């Protein structure tokens, strides 16, 4: 069964992003929303972790949250898909279940 994981915390704030990645099964996906969109930016201390995890699962970041925080879409790690709220809805229905990491 495929699962969509959503995360909303900055990886600089706490370990939610790393916990989520460590418990994400192979055919699952991660959607970064709210403060978690910071995770998918290039040249941070988490960039390498995200890049290597992209081999195992798909990752998405919510565009309105990136834009709201002044984060350039050009600086998003390659391979991370930038999506809107309607895509967020599609992701929840395309996966078998959803886990929101709070």
């Amino acid at each position, binding site marked *: *069964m495929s699962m969509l994981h959503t995360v909303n915390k900055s990886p600089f704030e706490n370990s939610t992003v790393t*916990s989520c990645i460590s*418990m*994400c099964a192979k055919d699952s996906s991660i959607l970064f929303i709210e403060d978690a969109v910071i995770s998918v930016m290039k040249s941070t201390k988490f960039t390498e972790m995200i890049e290597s995890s992209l081999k195992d699962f798909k990752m998405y970041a919510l565009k309105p949250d990136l834009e709201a925080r002044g984060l350039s879409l050009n600086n998003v790690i390659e391979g991370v898909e930038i999506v809107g709220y309607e895509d967020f809805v599609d992701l929840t229905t395309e996966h078998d*279940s959803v*886990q929101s990491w709070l």
Partner: protein
Amino acid sequence: MSEEGIVKKFMYVNRKSPYGTIYALESLEVVLITAAFDQDVSLTFTDDGVYQLMKDQKTDGIGMKNFSSTYSALGDYEIKKIFIDKESLEERGLSVSDLQELVWEDEDEDYAEKSSINLVSRAELSNIMSQQDIVMSF
């Protein structure tokens, strides 16, 4: 009280230590209600959530109700699947002996007490989580 006999797999993921926020207590409240609906309920304790099960909690000094003993009632509510993340325990210098023992009584075997606790790796947890219908994280 089941809804036309539908039984789903509900997992509650507890990731926060108790008392600092209300999440642990209010998570427990949902868990007890879910059990009343005859659903397949399991609980995961990971990250700081493992502190929820610490033995010898004493809350007199902080003026809050000590709800740690309520976890021992889970067996009465037919909740027999408690998963504890081994790595989270190790990271915090804890072992399962620091935690409460949680058991359920097997009515068919003259109320014999059986352990509800399963110590699992993150890889195993990931596998168990992905088989759930509903996951709620508190």
